[in-house]
């Protein structure tokens, strides 16, 4: 059952080939069997079986939606009513969310069955899942390597077939990078496409939730259920949601693909470059035209992002003060001690580093030099994309500089870790949608291809990804031991 697509699962459920209870138990068994991956923080077995039972009733009454009865897992950044929601942090180790995130609410309404809450970098700050309070997640392709981050649990769980699909969030690459390193399909939608309500904030002008699945076809179904305007999110955009599955089979003849020369410079390692070139040749065969474009300001994306994201983080994370929820230190002597020690004990090292960086960038005397400067560069980067997207329909490039790196390899050097986001963060600064799809292997580790589109063209990205997946089988490869 774990090898089936979402469409096949829905057909199996509706034709009575298996029940949602059977399907849910099957995945719960797999989660137990592969618990050494550490992909889950919380497995909600009892709740899952209740939801599966309710879904079976809905199916019997023929009141189904595409995800009814289908198990999936939520990144532990989404608040889930009466279920522990940790955001990968000791700060929220005792936090039982008092409400559902809109994404959770929508998936529940669709009849999806939540298997549990997925491991992640603490407060989504990390590119390897190693900053989680609950420990590193192992990449199913090679358990000595990282799954990427921050949605590392989502990447590992989908790749290992512990869940048919999962939610993720992406502030600087946190859906696309783990999707690439785990050999799955991950889509970061346009900023404002998926509600951020109940999605614990890291950097509010960059955060966006999205689907992580085994194929573009499955990602389309999951995004369909997640997307839409939400009055509870003040930055949600009121644009109609198209039918994401309807355009999957459109022809790519005449598609104009831009390759930024800055993405394919000599800095890109040769194995990665040749793997991506093969993928791009495949698109040529499908009728696409390849055009070189230039985005001169891309090189400043990392410094700009690592000012803006920590600045927003330092403001957002000030809510964790040990007063109303979350960790509180023992026997505080005064209010200042309560704040300082609760935060000091509750946050891990990378989160502290970003709070310090953000606080500094926003402090008197440095605000213009760092924060305003970074925002100006954000505008230039965004304009680079706008210009490029007037010449071409989509932009393609790498997702990551390398395949999955070793657990422990980069965690001691924050800058080294930040540089692993080099191909993904500019897209968040611009707010554009982008998808990562499996495009080959180097030494048995998956490589991702990134496809970046114009605002609110997710259906087009899914179409372009799906067409590639019709003529290649990289996305169907399963890590050894998880078949």
């Amino acid at each position, binding site marked *: 059952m774990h090898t089936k697509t979402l469409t096949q699962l829905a057909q199996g459920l509706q034709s009575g080939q298996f029940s949602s209870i059977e399907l849910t138990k099957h995945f719960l068994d797999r989660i137990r069997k592969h618990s050494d991956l550490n992909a889950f923080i919380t497995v909600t077995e009892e709740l899952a079986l209740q939801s599966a039972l309710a879904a079976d009733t809905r199916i019997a009454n023929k009141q189904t939606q595409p995800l009814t009865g289908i198990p999936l897992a939520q990144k532990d950044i989404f608040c889930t009513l009466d279920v522990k929601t940790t955001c990968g942090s000791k700060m929220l180790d005792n936090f039982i969310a008092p409400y559902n995130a809109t994404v959770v609410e929508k998936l529940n309404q669709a009849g999806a069955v939540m298997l549990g809450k997925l491991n992640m970098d603490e407060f989504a700050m990390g590119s390897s899942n190693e900053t989680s309070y609950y420990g590193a997640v192992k990449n199913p392709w090679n358990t000595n390597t990282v799954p990427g981050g921050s949605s590392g649990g989502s990447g590992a769980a989908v790749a290992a077939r512990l869940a048919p699909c999962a939610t993720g969030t992406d502030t600087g690459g946190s859906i696309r990078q783990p999707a690439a390193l785990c050999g799955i399909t991950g889509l970061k939608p346009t900023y404002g496409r998926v509600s951020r309500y109940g999605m614990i904030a890291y950097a509010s002008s960059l955060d966006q939730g999205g689907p992580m699945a085994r194929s573009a076809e499955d990602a389309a179904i999951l995004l369909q259920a997640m997307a839409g305007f939400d009055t509870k999110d003040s930055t949600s955009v009121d644009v109609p949601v198209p039918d994401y599955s309807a355009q999957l089979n459109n022809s790519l003849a005449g598609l104009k693909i831009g390759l930024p020369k800055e993405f394919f410079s000599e800095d890109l390692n040769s194995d990665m470059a040749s793997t991506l070139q093969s993928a791009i040749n495949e698109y040529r065969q499908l009728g696409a035209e390849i055009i070189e474009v230039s985005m001169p300001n891309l090189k400043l994306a990392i*410094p700009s992002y690592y*000012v803006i994201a920590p600045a927003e983080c330092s403001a957002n994370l000030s809510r964790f003060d040990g007063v*109303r929820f979350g960790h*509180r230190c023992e026997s505080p002597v005064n209010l200042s001690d*309560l704040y300082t020690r609760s935060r000091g004990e509750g946050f891990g090292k990378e989160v502290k580093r970003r709070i310090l960086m953000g*606080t500094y960038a926003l402090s008197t005397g440095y605000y213009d030099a760092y924060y305003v400067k970074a925002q100006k560069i954000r505008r230039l980067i965004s304009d680079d994309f706008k210009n490029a997207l007037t010449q071409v329909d989509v932009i393609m490039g790498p997702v990551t500089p390398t395949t999955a790196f070793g657990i422990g390899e980069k965690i001691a050097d924050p*800058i080294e870790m930040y540089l692993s986001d080099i191909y993904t963060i500019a897209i968040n600064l611009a707010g554009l949608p982008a998808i990562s799809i499996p495009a080959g292997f180097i030494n048995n580790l998956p490589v991702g291809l990134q496809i970046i589109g114009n605002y609110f063209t997710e259906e087009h990205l899914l179409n372009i990804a799906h067409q590639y997946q019709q003529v290649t089988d990289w996305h169907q490869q399963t890590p050894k031991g998880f078949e």
Partner: protein
Amino acid sequence: MSLSTNEVIQIAHLARLGIDPQDIDSYAKDLSGILDLMTQMSELKTSDVEPMAHPMDQVQRLRIDAVTESNNREKFMTIAPQVEDGLYLVPKVIE
């Protein structure tokens, strides 16, 4: 650009963030390294560029002034570290 350990202590104070004394040197080193990365930004002239705070350049949406949320006070209080008589307890502020 490098940050001294005193500056790190001052920033941590502004953020009300407890940091382990033995970690201060490593924070100073890491933050100095990150700030070096930031200095690349100054290579670019940006005096005519409008800062971009948000990808959609949206205005704040308004809503009708009506009650939309139900009162969840008791539920919220159950997850608080310390409450009494419906109030959140913190150490005494005024002697």
